[in-house]
């Protein structure tokens, strides 16, 4: 009977997802059982240390730069009043629309020997070339395009902090630097760490930047082992080591976020201080630098080269690629949201420790880098196809690989990877709403699905839209998963851009890149301005 109490639509959907995720992850252990190949022995002996070292420094530099860009920006727009503050409030998020690999192609080109920056430098007599195609350059690219994660989480946390805390500190004649050290940073630490973790996970997920800059980190190594050396076993073993690396990072994040306390803004509205002239210069530089290099320059570059190359690239194929990208992104995002809604509902009301742990496991996906997930999902689908051959034959299908490299497989991988993002957004909106509306509906005799549809969904509308946008942007931009798992001859904007860049046709990549960025900008505008409008109301 207790089992029946726990079995309902929310738990059944969650259990199905759990089983699928579990089976996918079991592929990793299965891959370790075979004998180590020569390629793996070579990698372990001579290359693994470099992969670990490079990944560590790439993550470290990216985390530091993005923390500075994001935190300082969020601090300025929250605590100070200055011209264009509102503009910066939403514009600082725009670099999120620029995929890191596109920024890498742009800056790689601009700083190349024939690029505009090198030419300008030579024009003023500086002959030495700035090498951006390095580990340091890659981390700067990641920080410039990913810092909005830090900006958003920190700003949201600062907005919730009580103004009186800072006012009482000032009345106690505490110096500004001490307020930073003793109040601002400790109170913002959970948000800062959470934002930086997102940046780090995105950095580890990347394949486009590290491939183009030839920075030998884990995702580079996994692709290399699989596609150049043709050794899936070595790719799985590398995935295992990479997961340990990710696990260590997640543990560090948990330790840094311990004793988290949330302060809510009560009482009076925050009175923003005016910036002095000297501080204004610093403020505009601190806000302008990441916005300029993370968004404005890339967009100008892409617009310029799109105009120069559109006669070659604006064709039916681009339309086909755009339709592909938008359709699969919408479908995958909607399914992800649907599943996340069910899982979040189970999470809200369950008292079962098993279900709580199960949900933690289901929502691990975002921490798993795309290259690793692609390996595991591929193996899972190949195995499934193998088992289903008799069924295929029954329906007269001769092929042995039907689901492998199908759109179903690609969508499945997207859902697994981005379920965490959707779940977190829905869960936090549920927390704001509280359980009483749903409970009231139950006591009025309405069942779970009716309540979900009539009460929860209308009340979650803003959270759902936000979750849709965040997941949609990520699916549209996603490169490693799409590259490995897409059906043959199936391109999305991301793979098209990658293809141009691989063929050294960076300028021709501009138009699809610009389209990709535009999708992101429209989505970001939609959510930021929807929020602003609501606030004005």
């Amino acid at each position, binding site marked *: *009977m207790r089992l029946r109490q726990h079995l309902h639509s929310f738990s059944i959907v969650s259990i199905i997802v759990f089983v699928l995720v579990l089976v996918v992850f079991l592929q990793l252990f299965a891959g370790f059982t075979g004998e180590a190949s020569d390629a793996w022995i070579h990698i372990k002996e001579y290359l693994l240390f470099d992969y670990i070292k490079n990944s560590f420094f790439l993550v470290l530099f990216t985390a530091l730069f993005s923390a500075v860009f994001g935190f300082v920006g969020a601090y300025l727009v929250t605590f100070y009043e200055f011209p264009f503050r509102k503009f910066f409030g939403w514009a600082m998020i725009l670099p999120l629309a620029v995929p890191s690999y596109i920024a890498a192609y742009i800056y790689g080109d601009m700083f190349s020997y024939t690029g505009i920056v090198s030419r300008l430098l030579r024009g003023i007599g500086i002959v030495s070339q700035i090498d951006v195609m390095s580990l340091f350059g890659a981390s700067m690219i990641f920080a410039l395009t990913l810092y909005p994660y830090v900006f958003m989480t920190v700003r949201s946390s600062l907005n919730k902090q009580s103004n009186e805390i800072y006012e009482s500190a000032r009345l106690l004649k505490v110096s500004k630097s001490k307020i930073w050290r003793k109040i601002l940073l400790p109170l913002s630490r959970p948000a800062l760490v959470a934002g930086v973790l997102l940046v780090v996970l995105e950095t580890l997920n990347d394949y486009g930047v590290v491939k183009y800059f030839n920075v030998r980190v884990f995702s580079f190594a996994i692709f290399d082992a699989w596609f150049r050396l043709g050794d899936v076993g070595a790719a799985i073993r590398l995935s295992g080591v990479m997961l340990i690396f990710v696990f260590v990072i997640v543990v560090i994040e948990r330790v840094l976020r311990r004793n988290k306390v949330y302060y809510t803004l009560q009482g009076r509205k925050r009175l923003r201080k005016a910036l002095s002239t000297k501080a204004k210069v610093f403020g505009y530089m601190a806000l302008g630098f990441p916005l300029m290099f993370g968004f404005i320059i890339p967009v100008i570059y892409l617009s310029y080269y799109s105009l120069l190359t559109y006669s070659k690239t604006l064709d039916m194929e681009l339309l086909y690629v755009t339709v592909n990208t938008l359709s699969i992104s919408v479908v995958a995002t909607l399914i992800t949201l649907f599943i996340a809604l069910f899982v979040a509902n189970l999470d809200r009301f369950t008292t079962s420790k098993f279900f709580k742990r199960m949900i933690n496991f289901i929502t691990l996906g975002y921490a798993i880098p795309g290259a690793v997930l692609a390996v595991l999902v591929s193996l899972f689908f190949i195995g499934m196809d193998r088992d289903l051959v008799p069924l295929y034959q029954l329906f007269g299908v001769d092929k042995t690989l039907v689901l492998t490299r199908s759109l179903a497989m690609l969508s499945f991988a997207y859902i697994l990877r981005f379920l965490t993002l959707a779940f977190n957004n829905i869960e936090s909106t549920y927390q704001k709403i*509280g359980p*009483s509306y749903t409970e009231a509906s139950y*006591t*009025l*005799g309405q069942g779970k699905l009716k309540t979900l549809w009539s009460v929860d969904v209308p009340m979650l509308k803003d959270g759902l839209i936000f979750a849709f946008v965040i997941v949609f942007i990520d699916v549209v931009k996603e490169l490693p998963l799409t590259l490995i798992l897409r059906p043959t001859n199936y391109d999305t904007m991301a793979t098209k851009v990658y293809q141009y860049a691989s063929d050294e046709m960076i300028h021709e990549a501009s138009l699809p890149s610009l389209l990709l960025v535009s999708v992101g900008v429209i989505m970001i505008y939609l959510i930021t301005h929807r929020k602003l409008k609501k606030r004005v109301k």
Partner: protein
Amino acid sequence: MMYLEVKDIDFSFKDETILKEASFSMKKGEIVALLGPSGSGKSTFLRVLTGLAHISRGQLFIHDEEITKLPPEKRHIGMVFQDYALFPHMSVKQNIMFGIEHLKKDDRYLQLHKMLKLTNLTDKCHKYPHQLSGGEAQRVALARSLAASPDLLLLDEPFSNLDTELKAGIRLELKEILSSLDTTCLFVTHDIEDARAIADSVYTIENYKIKKIENANM
């Protein structure tokens, strides 16, 4: 013959015992107040009755029918929440009709008009929750629960969001409404005056058990 019977129930939350071998009963049409300070487990007891919280031991009966293992939506127990939990995206009319959608259209509207008249909300029918005063919101929450003709009505701190002046009038109104419908009602309060004004008998939670306070109306 008792209408509601609670037999030897145990309930704990995060390893903290709230109720242990607790029993309780009510007669049909009786109005009972459950009195006690914050954190004593009063609201939790209401959640146990509705099925929103699960007991680890014991049995619950309404009209001799065991409801212990039924989900909340099948217990026919209405509840007015402390914050009223009016659905903000629905009008007063939609809120009231939410729990009676299974009725035929004519019956549904008949019930709606009956509830609006009873709670004196006819002119607020098309308003939304944010357009209502505290007293009006409370009456909508009450009308919504009563519309579904529950076997038992639970009220969680029904007066906590109202100011003192409003409270006296609303207490009286509530008593009249409940009596006119012969509703069996259990309400939770921390104010002895609320209990005295409305309840036929008063109980409290002490040492994890529900105990009657004799002479509470004196």
